[in-house]
Every structure is written in structure tokens, then in C-alpha cells.
């Protein structure tokens, strides 16, 4: 049974996947077990993306299908106790409600074995600080689509530092108008042009091959 589910997730075959999840649910297979198989399929999605067999559209679609399947069994994307490479906290900075870039990065990081804490959009500095204290991430991602949000990013990063939380923590930024100039301005550790950049940076940081 499991391989069908894994393949359906990896091949983004939504109809097979939904049918299989419903069948497993009827058979009484524990939700956590189903979620873990879906996660295995997501790992293959991530690998295909790395190998350029899949593009961002497939990644985005995989997250949609995963969420749909998880909802069928009453789970969620972060469910399961599968081991992760580390924890990644991500949000769109306050003053900015755009979520497409943020959602792509959280999906790609999740596909690549990171535990992802998605703070949503229009995230306050206080919410970032609270999440860092609670989840103790190795990496924080801050995104924006507006140049007017740059000052918010800068303030947020300064406040994280002032709160004594910057040691051992790396902060990445990204989003439509961002580049290295922005990273320098806001005091980030790195600028990620693509979602894959955030994966490579984090893997390197955590010594993942």
C-alpha cells in the first residue's frame, strides 16, 4: 500500500493519492503512518526539484496536494515525528501581506527535510522573537515583496540581536525586490535568490550532505 501512496505523492497524481488516502483511512491505518508516507513522497519531490526534473510549479502543487491529503486524515504539514535536519522559522515581515514567496520557501525546506515553522504574513518582530525562543531554530527566513518593508526587516534583525538571540542563528532574506544590497542593508547573513538557495545554505550550515 505504502509505495502507491509514496509514488502518487511524488508523481503529483492527485486522484490516485486521494483514493489511496481514503482507502488507508478506511482500513484503519494510523494517520501518522499515512503522513509519514506522504512525507516520503515529498522528499522525492524535493529531489526531483534539485535535479531540475520539477520546477517551482510542481513544488507549489505538491504542497497543495499534501495539505489536501493531510486534511483528509485530520493531520497537518508539520505532523509526524520524522527526524529533521534542523528547524527553520519563516515569515513575511510586518507591513507586507504577500505570501507566495514565503509559501514556496517553506514548501521547499519542508521537502528537503527541515522542520518548518510558518509564521504567516505581516509578522511582527515580537512574533519572530517569540518563535525563536520557543522553537530554537538554526535558521530564520524573512521575506518581503515591498521595498518599503526593508526597514522592517532591518529593525526585526536588530531586535533579534538586541534580545541576545543572534548567536548561533542565521538569518536569510528573500523576495522579489531583494538582493545582496538589501541583505547588507538589513544585516542578514545571506540573500537567497531562490528557494533552493535557502536549502543549500541551511544544509551547508548543518553539515547535511
Amino acid at each position, binding site marked *: 500500500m505504502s509505495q502507491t501512496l509514496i509514488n502518487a505523492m511524488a508523481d*503529483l497524481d*492527485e486522484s490516485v493519492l486521494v483514493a489511496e488516502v481514503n482507502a488507508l483511512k478506511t482500513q484503519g491505518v494510523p494517520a501518522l503512518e499515512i503522513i509519514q508516507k506522504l512525507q516520503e513522497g515529498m522528499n522525492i519531490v524535493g529531489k526531483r526539484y534539485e535535479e531540475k526534473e*520539477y*520546477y*517551482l*510549479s*510542481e513544488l*507549489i*502543487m505538491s*504542497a*497543495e496536494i499534501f495539505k489536501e491529503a493531510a486534511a483528509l486524515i485530520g493531520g497537518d504539514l508539520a505532523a509526524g515525528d520524522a527526524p529533521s535536519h534542523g528547524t527553520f522559522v519563516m515569515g513575511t515581515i510586518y*507591513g*507586507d*501581506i*504577500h505570501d*507566495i514567496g514565503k*509559501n514556496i520557501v517553506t514548501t521547499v525546506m519542508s521537502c528537503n527535510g527541515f522542520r518548518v515553522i510558518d509564521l504567516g504574513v505581516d509578522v511582527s518582530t515580537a512574533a519572530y522573537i517569540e518563535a525563536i525562543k520557543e522553537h530554537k531554530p538554526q535558521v530564520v527566513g524573512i521575506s518581503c515583496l*515591498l*521595498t*518599503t518593508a*526593508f*526597514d522592517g526587516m532591518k529593525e526585526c534583525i536588530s531586535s533579534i540581536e538586541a534580545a541576545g538571540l543572534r548567536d548561533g542563528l542565521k538569518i536569510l532574506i528573500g523576495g*522579489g*525586490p*531583494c*538582493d545582496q*544590497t*538589501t541583505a547588507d*542593508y538589513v544585516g542578514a547573513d545571506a540573500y537567497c535568490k531562490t528557494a533552493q538557495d535557502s536549502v543549500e545554505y541551511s544544509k551547508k550550515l548543518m553539515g547535511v550532505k
Partner: protein
Amino acid sequence: MTKDVMTPEERIQAAINLEPVDRVVCAPMIDQYAGQFAGMLNKDFMHDWEKCMGAIDKVKEAYPIWDSNPFIMCERIAPYMQIIGLMRTKMPGTELEDNASFQMHEFEAMTREDLDIILNEGLFPYIIKFCQVSHGSTVEQIMAALPEKAKLHADEVRRTLARGQSPTWSILGGSGPDVISMTRSLEKYFRDVRQIPDKLYAVMERVTDEMIALLAAQADQTGIRRAFIGDSRSSAQWLSLKVFENMLLPLMKRLVNGLNEKNIIPILHYDSDWTDNLEYLLQLPAKKFVLQLDGATDIFKAKDVLGGHCAIMGDVHASMLSVGSPDDVDAYAKKLIQYVGKGGGLIYSTGCCMPMNAKHENVKAFFDAVDKYGRYN
């Protein structure tokens, strides 16, 4: 400093035809920055047409070298964008604080079933339904807003000409993929691409044909036959080259050729990273379109690939203009004008819009670069 010998209209036409120009066309996209430059709150700029246009006048007065206006405000002015705009929008002074930038919020306003509206009834009924769902507009409000917006459109063209500028485009439209993805949402659109490609293609083909007819009618009214065409979701940043070859490139050719047949030059406003798609654009007719880039695509590679084939518009980056220095802007503008402008075909511009929070000294450096590096006479 030498003086201009070409009119703005002669200059932009020559640039599109890859012919010599007296100096580079200077065509930054200026919207919300103008309000900040004029010292007004963005709520006034976004809600009050006269104040908005007055602010843009002030930028032109300060920088007379700004000779071509890629105008956009008739599409963005709050009273109509929140009734008939192609995206749900939060505006300063109403949903946002008084001096905030407006923000667009994409969601699944239209379902997969709604695509049948396009196939069975056409684009207009689909847009009507979108406005009802996205903005809560009534049909009466929509029908009242359309002619009012058309008046602003005509007014923006008139004011552009009155300032002594060429309208970089006189009409604004979107590609089939952009129309569908922005109304369906990016996520649902990508599902459609994978799950119902044939139906989706038929839908986008119909949108393309109706867009051509609509823009041709508008061009007849404005008398200037250049069209803005937004397309930010067809690039290899998002979709595979296989999908591009099979679905998106044929639609692109249909749109460009269709507009060309109506004597309209499309300015392809291609946000996102098109670097891997550049070679394909050689399949579009030479000197019959302009490629406008936002900073995500490697514009220097675009010149290597498409130099001698089409004019290229762009792309001083938003980040540089907002948090960089005048020296950064000057150095980039120099490289842009000297490399992309070599042999002609550059329409010197910002990467998408001038940031609302661009530093004034950076904007000055942007304009100053035209006389420093962009004079050929």
C-alpha cells in the same frame, strides 16, 4: 551637454526599430514614488486623481530628461482598482495606514468550473464575475466604473503628451496565462497546467484573441499603437521549458503576432526570471516587440541573446534605488547604457516600478546618467 534633436516619439520608435537615437530613451515607471517626491501622503496619491497627476507633473518638472512615460496609474487609482481591478487590493488610508504602499492579495477568486464561462460566454462575463467575487462589486458598479476608468486612461495619455513625453505604451493588457493565474491564484493555475492542460490552453487561447481585439479597439481610440502586456508567470522560474514550448510559447506567439497584425507593438512586461527562456524569444518577429525586464532576468545576457532582434527595457533594480547609494545607481546605469545600449535598442528604465521609498538622491543619479552616458549625438 548636447541637446535633443529627436522628439520623444521619434526616439522611442527608433529605439524599437533598433535604429540610431540622439540619446537613450529615458522611461522609468513612476507611480507611488511621485507622491513621496511631491511630499504628499500615499493615500492622497492613490485616491485623488488630480493630486496623483500633479505629483507626476512635479517629477517631470524636476527631471525634464524623462521623455517616455510607461504610465500605470489609470489601472491603479484606488476608486476603480477596488471595483474593477484585476487583483484584490488593500489601499493606504482605508485598509492600510495613510502613507503605506498599496498591496495586492491574490487568492482563488475563480474556480476551475468558472473557466467554462470563458469558453462559453467569453472573457468579459468572466471578469464581471471576478470583480463580484474579488471586490464585492455589483454589476451596476462595474458598468459605471468602466467608462470612468476609460476617461482616466484617456486623460493619462493626454497628460503624458502634454508634458512633452511619449507614452511608452498607450494601452494596457495581459497575457492569457497572467489573466488566468491572477484570477485563479498561482497555486490553482499550476494545478490546471498539470491536470487540465488542453482545456486550459483553449481558455487561454480565447483570452488571447479577446485581448487582441480589446487592445486594438483601445489603440484606435488613443492613436498610439503600443501595448503593455503583463506576463510574470510563464518563465522558467516557475514552469518547465517543456510546458513553455508546448503551451506558453504558442500563446505568446499568438498574442504578439495578433497584435502586430493590428499594427500594435507589444511591450512584454516580463517580471520574474526569464533568463532560461531568452533564446525562445528569437522566434517572435524582429523589431516588433519590446522586452521589459524587472531585474530578475539577467538583462546583459538578454542583450547577448536578443541584441539586434528586439529593444530591451529596464532595469535599474528596486533594491538599489531604495537602499543603495547614488554611486551604485550611477555605476549600474553606466553599465546598462553602455552594454545593453550598445548598437541601440535600449529603453532605459527601472526594474518594474520606481520604489515608493527610493532615495531622492538615487533617483537623481538615475536621471543624471542619461546625460552622462546616454548621449550619442
